[in-house]
Structures are given as structure tokens and as C-alpha cells.
């Protein structure tokens, strides 16, 4: 039996709604609130049931407009590359600071996407981030903690 990707997603959503509903029932409410007409778990319980109903309907009913996606034309390599890069960015931003991690993130993203104009890659990374940081500090008074810039004595 072949199942369409949309139905598969709906099936996953059905399972997710079931788990959500289970978790909703586990929410601890105050004893005096247990039998109240409305407490902290009432709305989530309704949502869990709504999720189950809509996803079940989608799985059961025939698809009116099935979405066909040619999986062969999708660019997995670059997309996964960018996602990994963003995760690495998240890992480094607190340690290396905003300036260095953001600039390196931009350089690496341009390269992953196939850009090879090195002058533009440079302009739109380190100086660009520096100007952006200056705007944040100067105009919006938003302080960005940056251990690297502090270490080299640029930021206090």
C-alpha cells in the first residue's frame, strides 16, 4: 500500500496530537481547580482532540488536490549544509561572540551556496556585521555581549 507524503505528515500529526493530548491530561492543576468548569488543562485537551479529528479526517478522506513533489530536483546538500551551519552558529555565538560567529556564518553560507566573488563575500560579512553592530549600539542602544571584541579591546 502506497501512502502519499501529505497523508504521512497527517499521520505524524495524528501521533503528535495523541502525545499532546496525553501530556495535556498530565498537567497538574490545583486541587480546588480540578473540577472547575475551566482549568489549565481544559483548552489543551480540546486542542488535542481537535488535532486528532482533523488529522484523522485527512487520513480517511480521499485527497482532493494531492500535492506532487519531485523529490529528485530538491537540493538536499545545500539545504542541509545551511541548517548545519545555523546549528554551528548557535553553538558558537555565546562563546565566540556575535561579531566573529556571525561574520564566519555569512562567509560560510555564501560559499556553501556557490558564491566565489571574494571581494563581495568579504564586504558582506566582516564590515557588514561591524556596521550592523554599530547601528544596534549607536541607534538602538542594544548591547551585544562579545567576548572576542572585548578580548581585543574594541568593546568594553
Amino acid at each position, binding site marked *: 500500500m502506497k501512502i502519499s*507524503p*501529505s497523508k504521512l*505528515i*497527517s499521520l505524524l500529526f495524528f501521533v503528535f*496530537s495523541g502525545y*499532546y493530548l496525553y501530556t*495535556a491530561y498530565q498537567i*497538574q*492543576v490545583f486541587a480546588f481547580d480540578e473540577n*472547575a*468548569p*475551566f*482549568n*489549565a*488543562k*481544559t*483548552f*489543551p485537551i480540546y*486542542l488535542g482532540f*481537535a*488535532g486528532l479529528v*482533523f*488529522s484523522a479526517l*485527512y487520513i480517511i*478522506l*480521499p485527497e*482532493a*488536490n494531492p*500535492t506532487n*513533489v519531485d523529490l529528485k*530536483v*530538491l*537540493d*538536499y546538500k*545545500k*539545504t542541509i549544509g*545551511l*541548517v548545519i551551519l*545555523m*546549528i554551528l*552558529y*548557535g*553553538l558558537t*555565538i*555565546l562563546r565566540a561572540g*556575535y561579531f566573529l560567529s*556571525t561574520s564566519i*556564518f*555569512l562567509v560560510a*553560507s*555564501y560559499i556553501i*551556496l556557490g*558564491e566565489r566573488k571574494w571581494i*563581495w563575500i568579504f564586504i*558582506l560579512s566582516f564590515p557588514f556585521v561591524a556596521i*550592523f553592530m554599530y547601528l*544596534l549600539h549607536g541607534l*538602538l542602544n*542594544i548591547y*551585544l555581549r562579545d567576548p572576542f571584541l572585548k578580548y581585543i579591546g574594541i568593546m568594553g
Partner: protein
Amino acid sequence: MIEGILIGLQTALSFKNLMMVMIGCFSGTIIGMLPGLGPMTAIALMIPITYGFDPSTGLILMAGVYYGAVFGGSTSSILINAPGVPGTVATSFDGYPMAQQGKAGKALAIAAYSSFAGGTISAIFLLIAAPSLSLVSLSFRSPDYFGLMILGLTAVAAFSSKGNFLKAMMMVVLGLMLASVGQDTLSDIPRFTFDNMNLSDGISFVLVVMATFAMSEALTIIFKANDPTKAAKQISLSQLGSIKLDKDETKKMVTTIPRSSVLGFIIGVLPGAGATIASFLAYGMERNFVNDEEKQKFGKGSVNGIAAPETANNAACSGSFVPLLTLGIPGSGTTAVMLGALLGFGIQPGPRLYQTNPEIFWSVIMSMYIGMVVLLILNLPLIPYIARVLATPRTFLIPLILFFSLTGVYLMSFNNFDIYMMIGIAVVATVLRLYDFPMPPLILAFVLGGLMEENLRRSLLISDGSWSFMWDRPLTIVIMLTIIFIVGWQIYKSFFKKKL
């Protein structure tokens, strides 16, 4: 009302706010011009910046971005037949053929004048309608609000689903589920936090908007191997022709604009309908109104064919602010983002906004009009230059969108947990988009989640746990029946379409 208008004008015409309108219109035009990046992305990217301003200034900036993005969408429709936003698809039917005849400047001018006129007329309607509706909506009670929110969600789901209503409803439920994460507002009991402190305040609205729109749109472009700027490289963006219109063309526009404005405004006020439907309906209506000779020109560069959808989509933009400002219930994804931003400023839109924060209420309305003027006198002459942004390679464009999204979220919390969560939501949203699961219903539901729970709580407590509140008042019954009709009709359509 006159006093309110003067307060609004005073606020909107301050140097700072005028600058914001200009910056908003300009940046909105640039972002909206890029195919795939619509007003929601443009506004989402602006939200972190607006939190540094006072509410009026922030909202004025976002309103400018909204109009700029709609105008930018028309530009890419006309120049490269790649509408930046769905609301400008109808513009490309005649705008692109006219541009191919070497009259791109003229097509852009028709679009700009029509947008201006449509925006002006609808701003007047808004001036009249908003205060009146505010007074009427003071009589609304919790069950009515609860019903209106469900109506808004089902209507948005019905209109944005492209025939897949159940997919859209799943997105509504997912949005509400995401909104339920964090402490319960009344009892402070943690829900779905899994003992993680980062989740105790719930998921940030900016994070969800950025993830589902800006970041996921950027990832989708890469994933589908699309190059939105490819078409722009094939045309000369510096030689667009004259922007002057002759007498005959002006005459045609004069008849088209009033009727398209009225239609656009009414459609905009309706929950869920918005600019896309308004522009298509106006295009269809105009085709029926014109004589046979003019009808033949439709699809080949008709003046009426450009003027009608452009007028209607701008009028609908103003119209969509009516339910937001008067009821506090957004009727579209874009106004949902604006509502989220308003709540971020600590402002609850609704009937009392008109009385409690008149400067915000009126300055937003006034700035819309100023935004129109800015678009006409600044953006139109600059289009040959602004249009060059269409030629920005995606190799630079995509990383910069990701950069603004990541920075926007980092600036909100200064921790990397939010960055990981945003990446996770964006990846899921990218897969969902691939299979036509629409994102606007998710955002609308996420924004309305808290308000909906609050109104349901009040309704159930007042009626002592009985669901009779749904049919106690005639107004609530009408709302509920409309919801049942929409849901029933959409499910029926989904079921029988295959069999026919």
C-alpha cells in the same frame, strides 16, 4: 473624530515618524519585490527593530513596510512576471504584457496611481468605519469574541488552503498548540515546558514568525533550487520607458478606481479574504464592466486590467485593519503579525484602543495615508534603481535573510536555545510548505491562542461549564452557524471533488 485625526496627524507627521514611514516603505518595497518574500516576511524582519521604539513609531514603521511590500510585489509582477506576493498575481496578467511592449514605466505608473487612489479612498472608509465599529463592538461579549476568533481562523484556513482545508485546519491546531506552551496565564501552572526554564514564558511570537516565514522561505528557495532573481537578469531594468499617462488612460482609471476601491475595502474587512481575493474579484468584475473592445485587451496589457487589481489589493490592505483595530481580531496573516507586535508593545487592540490610546489608533490610520504619498512621490521615480535589487544573486540574498532572522531572535533573548528552536520550527515549516500546508493559519492561530483561551475560559465560567453560551445570544448563533457552514462546506468539497 476631528480631534483624533489631528492627534494622529501630529504623531504621524513628527520627523521621526515620517522617517519611519519612508524607511518602512522603502525597505518594504525592496523585500516585497523579491519573489517569495511577501509582506509577512518583511514585517517579521522588522519586528525586532521596532521593539526599540515607542508603540506608535513601531506600528508606523510596520504599516509602511506593509504598503511598501505590496507595492514591491506589483513591481516584480509587472517587470518579471514573478509576483512577490499572491495579492499581486492578478496585476501580472496585464502588467507583464504591457512591460513586454516596452511600456513597463507606464504599467508601473498605473499600478502606483491606482494603489494610491485605492489606498486613499479606503483610508477614508477606514476613518469612518473604524470608530463606528469600535462603538458597536463594545457590546460584544466573551462568547462573541470566542466565536469571532474561530470564525477568523476557519475563514483564513478556507481561503488560504488552496482546496486543502483540512491541511489548513491542522495548521490552525498546531498554531494553537504552540501558543499553549508556557505558564497558564491565570494559574501560572507550567504546561508543555518539560521542566525547561527556556519554555516557561512560552514560545516567542517573533521566533515563530521568523521561523515559519523568513527562515523557512529562504530554506524553501534553496531546497526547491529556485532562483527568484533569474528572470530579472534577462531584462533591462534601467530602460523602463516613460511613466507619463495620456488622457485616455487616465479616463479609464477614473472609472475603474472607485468601484474597485469599494470592492477591495469590503473584501479586506471580511476575515480571511484579504488582498489576493480582492484583486482577483476586482479583475473579474472589471472585465465584466468594460465594453467588448476593451474586453479584448484584457490579458494583453489593458489599463483597466492593471488598475482594478492594484486598487483593490491596496484597498483590502486598509480594510484588513478594521477588524484588527476595532475588534482586536486580525483577519489575515499579515495583520496577525501586526497584532503580535502590538501585544509585544503591551497594547491590546480592540474597541477600547480607540478611547485608551487614541494617538496609536489615529496615527496608524494617518501614517497609512502618508505611506501612500511616500510610495507615489518617492518610490515610483526610484523604481528603475530599486528594481536592481531583483538582480541580487540568491547566493547573497539567502544568507542575508538567514542572518536577519537569526539576529532578530538572538536580540530578543540573548540565548542560543531560541536559535535552535527557530531552526527546528523552520525545518518543519519548510517540509510542510513543500506539501502545501499553509503557514498563515498557523501564525493567526498562534497569535490568537491566548486570547481565545481567555474568552473560552470566561464564557465557560459565566455559563457554569455549560456550552449553551454558544447559542444564548442571536449574535453568537449567527457566528457559530457561519463557522459550521464554512467547515461543513469545505469538508464536503474535499470529499466530493475526487468523486466528480
